[in-house]
């Protein structure tokens, strides 16, 4: 479980997160949605301890960062490190033994090639695999479906469901609402750094309609398509 109390974050005078109060339970998947710049990535970085913040973040496993797998939108890779070595590095960092790496390569990645030569989707899949082999208790997936092929999309959805079944806490952000519908127990809509709505699985339509109303509005009509 992760509890955020009065979490605020600002860059100079720009307040990007305002008094966030949230509890993320074990065995549940939470979808975080919102426009670009709504504060999703900042929220994730605060939880990971990569950003300073005001307020408190508590977890049942301490320190939280040692049990957290963080998948950022654009994973970073060194120039001359192979996929296999990247996975080794991730395991060394958490003092976990890397076993049967080829069997665990469910995305069929060319592990003996330099990771920096991978395509965008392959890089994302390797980064995801890297945090999965660490056996974390908490997971944050920032846009895991971006740039990934349809087959891997389905696989990622199944992975998230499996993590939920194993009692892990999972936070996912995605711009593809259908993927969240398939995996999430709750959806949190962030707007200008505040929680605009928080609904459970039965009321996802409310968030989707709210997003359509506020984010799309009559913008399509403005194009005057003929």
């Amino acid at each position, binding site marked *: 479980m992760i509890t955020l109390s009065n979490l605020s974050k600002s860059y100079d005078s720009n307040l990007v997160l305002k008094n966030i109060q949230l509890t993320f339970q074990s065995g549940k998947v939470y979808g975080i949605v919102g426009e670009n710049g709504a504060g999703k990535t900042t929220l994730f970085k605060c939880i*990971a*301890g*990569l950003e*300073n913040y005001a307020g408190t973040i508590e977890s049942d496993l301490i*320190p939280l*960062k*040692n049990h957290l797998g*963080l998948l*950022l939108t654009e994973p*970073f890779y*060194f*120039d*001359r*490190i*192979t996929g*296999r*070595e*990247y996975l*080794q*590095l*991730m395991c*060394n*960092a*958490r*003092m976990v033994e890397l076993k049967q790496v080829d069997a665990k390569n469910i995305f069929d990645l060319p592990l*003996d*090639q*330099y990771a920096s*030569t991978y395509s965008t989707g392959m890089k994302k899949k390797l980064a995801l695999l890297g945090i999965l082999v660490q056996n974390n208790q908490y997971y944050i997936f920032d846009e895991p479906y971006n740039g990934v092929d349809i087959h891997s999309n389905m696989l990622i959805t199944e992975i998230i469901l499996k993590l939920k079944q194993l009692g892990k806490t999972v936070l996912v952000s995605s711009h593809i609402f259908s993927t969240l519908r398939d995996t999430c127990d709750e959806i949190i809509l962030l707007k200008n750094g505040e929680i605009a709505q928080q609904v459970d699985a039965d009321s996802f339509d409310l968030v989707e309609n709210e997003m359509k109303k506020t984010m799309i509005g009559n913008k399509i009509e403005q194009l005057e398509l003929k």
Partner: protein
Amino acid sequence: MKYYFQLQTIFWSRRFREAGFNPLFAAIFLVSIFVGASFFLFKYVDRAPYIFSGIAFFLTTLTSNKSKSDFLSSTFKDTLGKQIELAEKMLVLTPFVVFLLCKLEFILTGSLILITCTSFLMRFGFSGDKSIPTPFSKHPFEFAVGFRRLFWLLLPIYGLTCIAMMYDNYNLGVFSLLAVIAVVINFYNEVEDELFVWNFSKSVNQFLGYKIRIGLIYATSLVLPILIALLVFYLSNWWVTLAFLVVGLAFLSTYIVAKYAAFPQRINFVDGLVIMICIPLPVLLIFIFPYFYGRAKNALTVFLQ
């Protein structure tokens, strides 16, 4: 090419200004430091010409990296990008060459220019994307990445060791040993993304200890052939050989903590200068290491607990 070097002048002027120095004053200061340190080195340090050449060679390796090479190749016509890279290296060598010539070290000067050019040309043969096997995959990333980036540099250095043994030149052997450590120090020039440090479930002390331990073990394994050769062929000098090894490894450890003292930025000009000053006076490392270690602890506290 002319405009590229004009841009470099502007770039360095900006760097000096950002560090709070007047560019002209900084240039005069650097030249004075160079001349002063060089005279000091040649007057008080044994085997100074070799150490001097080693430093020069090490500095030439700092002028290029893959992204810069790719940029130059893709921006400039034909082989102009490569010519610029080589010209940069020669520019770095110039003050060292002038000084060595003044000291009548003609053979060493020629060797230095030859090794710089050869290592530069050899690099193109291995610049493809095919992964190069490395014995350092168990503990990525510095040695795995660095070995692949600079293994072409290690081969001529091992060659120098063979020449040293063949021509009974102990100094050249010691130079090879220090050159390998200089190459290893270069492995630590790459600054990782913050997430790679954050990922470690270690305290700051454990993290720095791990980095230094791996650095020392792997560096020793790379100098081992040279070390064995020196100990076998010059057994009577065993304590001098080991002293050079210890000093080299002390520099490596200091460089590692200096890197993390500046993290997530690169080592800045002033810190680099502090380390350079320790080259003729390695005893200063006793004070410099704890200084950088303390700063590294502060810098890493944000990412590790």
